[in-house]
């Protein structure tokens, strides 16, 4: 083996004055680069660092974009009002690719490299479930905005919280009476074949049964599927209601193909808006949804009875009356979920202030302070509505909206009560050691 290019010839790689200067300049550049940890800075004036585990890419990208905007708006509002405990809030974003494996790595990166105070902002349930053990191991408080039942099931760990959005089990329980009374008694479910879909699979049948209705078929579809017609023959002919909840890039195809399959003689449709988040309901091919009903966490379209807080929140995040980005009517928001980011950040603020939070050494105190919370009043900090919080299962409970597609917009026709969605806790996180 010859060393033709002299890679291993040390005599040729001696340090010159020029390379030394270059190296020094690069090192100095790194030290002032954003995100570089400056250990010497005093804790009291340093910003509170929130690690935002964001679905920038992958199947959750549209949600990630809007979670990002909502987070930025909430942090701006919090900082303008004096920050948390007098310290500014800084958000550090890492993309998890909507992938559970990558999600766990991102949590690790926040804990060891960025040394953030908390990790926050995850939506997709498989990413939450994949990342939660890493958060527990690093004793890193992990505030998710996921909607899934995994937090409230107490199957994760003491460091995982969901204080900004109601979980699926509660949503379903709250809406089942309306579905049974207004849509139909024989229900066929179509859901994505992963954790979030399983919440629907497991909790809808008992909830409907309690109302005298039944689930007659359950169709699981892989989340990366791009064509759906082949699943539709599995829908029994006697179906009165199709209950659909789909996620991922192909949701529009799903609804279009359902329309082609049934035409005008369709069963009633009840869907989770997840099937059409970030999608204009006036897109070609979606006419067939007219008259169907959707669950919405927070209404996409401005309603006549919107509170002042709701109006202020919409303006701060930058969405117009149709729920699209101000100035770009094609950029439709994920309004039904992203309010959870806003509210979660205010819960974090409240809990940090209650705990007298100073830095990562107070993380256990922050966990206990969050668990001690019980109620969030409707207002600028909680524009979606009032909520109760159960510290034992780390889950909040709020009101749900059922909206009807009419005249090319979604109008809220029914609001559930908080009590409709309460259930017996399945466990108690507070018994776990910190």
């Amino acid at each position, binding site marked *: 083996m010859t060393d033709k290019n002299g890679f291993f010839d040390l005599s040729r790689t001696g340090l010159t004055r020029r390379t030394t200067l270059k190296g020094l300049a690069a090192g100095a550049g790194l030290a002032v680069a954003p995100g570089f940890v400056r250990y010497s800075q005093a804790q009291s004036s340093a910003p509170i660092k929130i690690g935002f585990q964001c679905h*920038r*890419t992958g199947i959750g990208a549209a949600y990630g974009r809007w979670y990002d905007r909502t987070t930025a708006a909430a942090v701006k509002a919090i900082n303008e009002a004096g920050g948390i405990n007098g310290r500014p809030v800084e958000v550090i974003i890492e993309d998890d690719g909507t992938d559970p494996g990558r999600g766990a790595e991102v949590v690790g990166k926040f804990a060891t490299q960025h040394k953030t105070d908390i990790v926050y902002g995850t939506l997709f349930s498989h990413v939450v479930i994949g990342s939660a053990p890493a958060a527990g191991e690093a004793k890193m408080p992990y505030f998710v905005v996921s909607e899934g039942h995994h937090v409230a099931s107490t199957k994760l760990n003491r460091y995982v919280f969901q204080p900004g959005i109601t979980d699926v089990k509660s949503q379903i329980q709250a809406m089942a009476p309306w579905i049974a009374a207004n849509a139909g008694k024989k229900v066929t479910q179509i859901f994505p074949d992963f954790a979030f879909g399983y919440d629907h699979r497991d909790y809808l049948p008992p909830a409907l049964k309690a109302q005298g209705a039944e689930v007659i078929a359950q169709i699981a579809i892989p989340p990366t599927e791009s*064509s759906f*017609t*082949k699943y539709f*023959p599995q829908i029994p002919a006697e179906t009165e209601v199709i209950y659909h909840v789909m996620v991922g890039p192909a949701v529009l*195809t799903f609804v279009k193909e359902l329309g082609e*399959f049934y*035409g005008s003689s369709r069963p009633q449709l009840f869907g989770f808006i997840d099937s059409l988040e970030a999608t204009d309901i006036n*897109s070609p091919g979606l006419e067939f949804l007219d008259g169907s009903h959707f669950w919405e966490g927070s209404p996409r379209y401005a309603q006549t009875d919107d509170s002042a807080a709701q109006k202020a929140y919409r303006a701060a995040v930058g969405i117009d009356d149709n729920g699209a980005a101000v100035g770009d009517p094609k950029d439709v928001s994920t309004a039904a979920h992203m309010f959870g980011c806003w509210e979660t950040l205010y819960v974090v603020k409240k809990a940090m202030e209650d705990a007298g939070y100073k830095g990562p050494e107070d993380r256990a105190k922050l966990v206990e302070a969050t668990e001690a919370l019980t109620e969030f009043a409707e207002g600028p900090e909680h524009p979606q509505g009032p909520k109760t919080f159960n510290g034992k299962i780390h889950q909040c409970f709020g009101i749900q909206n059922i909206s009807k597609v009419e005249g090319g917009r979604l109008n809220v026709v029914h609001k559930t009560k908080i009590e409709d969605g309460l259930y017996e806790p399945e466990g108690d996180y507070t018994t776990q050691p910190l």
Partner: protein
Amino acid sequence: MHFGPHLLLAALEGLVTSAVLALTALGLSLVFGVMRVVNVAHGEFFMLGAVLAWAISTAISGHPALGFLAALVLAPLIVGLIALVSERLVLRRLNYNPEATIVATIGMLYIIQQLALTFYGPEARPVEPPFSYRILLPWFGYSGYKLWIIAASALLLVATWFVLTRTKIGLVMRATQYDSETAQAFGIPVDRVYAGVFALGAMLAAVAAVLIVPISQAHYLMGQDPLLLSFIVVIIGGLGSLRGTVVAAVLIGLSDGIISVFFSPTLAKIIATLLVAMVLVFRPQGLFGTASR
């Protein structure tokens, strides 16, 4: 639903899959047959076709058919041009070395994918179909556009077959495939043939993507499935055999459609992969391939 209509729906779905798959796999097979290059970036040319179809059809206002037709012509041409450039810049400099080109095309896969993510974004965006006629069957409705995909794809396959077997360009390609050194000795510009074949292969993938994008959606990760299925088809059909590719595409597409309607899509994928394993064990050259010389 009764068995008859159920089977009809399954067969229709399978035929749409076959039609698109045949075009995509044909591109892969052609590149391998003539150049002996395993093009791992093939799926990304498919994705580029769909993304460009979105860009072109949104840039042109008026009736959706206008934008779609423009996309059907322009998107494959642009993709062909990109393939041509990458062939000149990468594959040629590696002297079409089989091992080196595999690694190089894996690199191209990531570069194209990340460029699409950077400039097009992570969203799935719809392209409006040129027409939205719904065929009303007594048991279920079916998209007229999907039937049109089958027809258009069959037409394109016949055109490709005609070019390869009945024209001088096709003769030159076949000569290069048969024995590139002798072809060069007879004055065939093998180098230019390679460039043309690589572009043509990418264009076939792109045109398949333009056809499918009104019923699917353009997304930067959409190239992965077609790549995998194309490899399955090409291995079963025999690398470099055009007839084998088309037969295998119809076989895989139909079985995928029928098995996933009656049983589950996962089972369809399992069976296709099992078939690949069986072919590799018992007939490594593929159903219609000739043993390597």
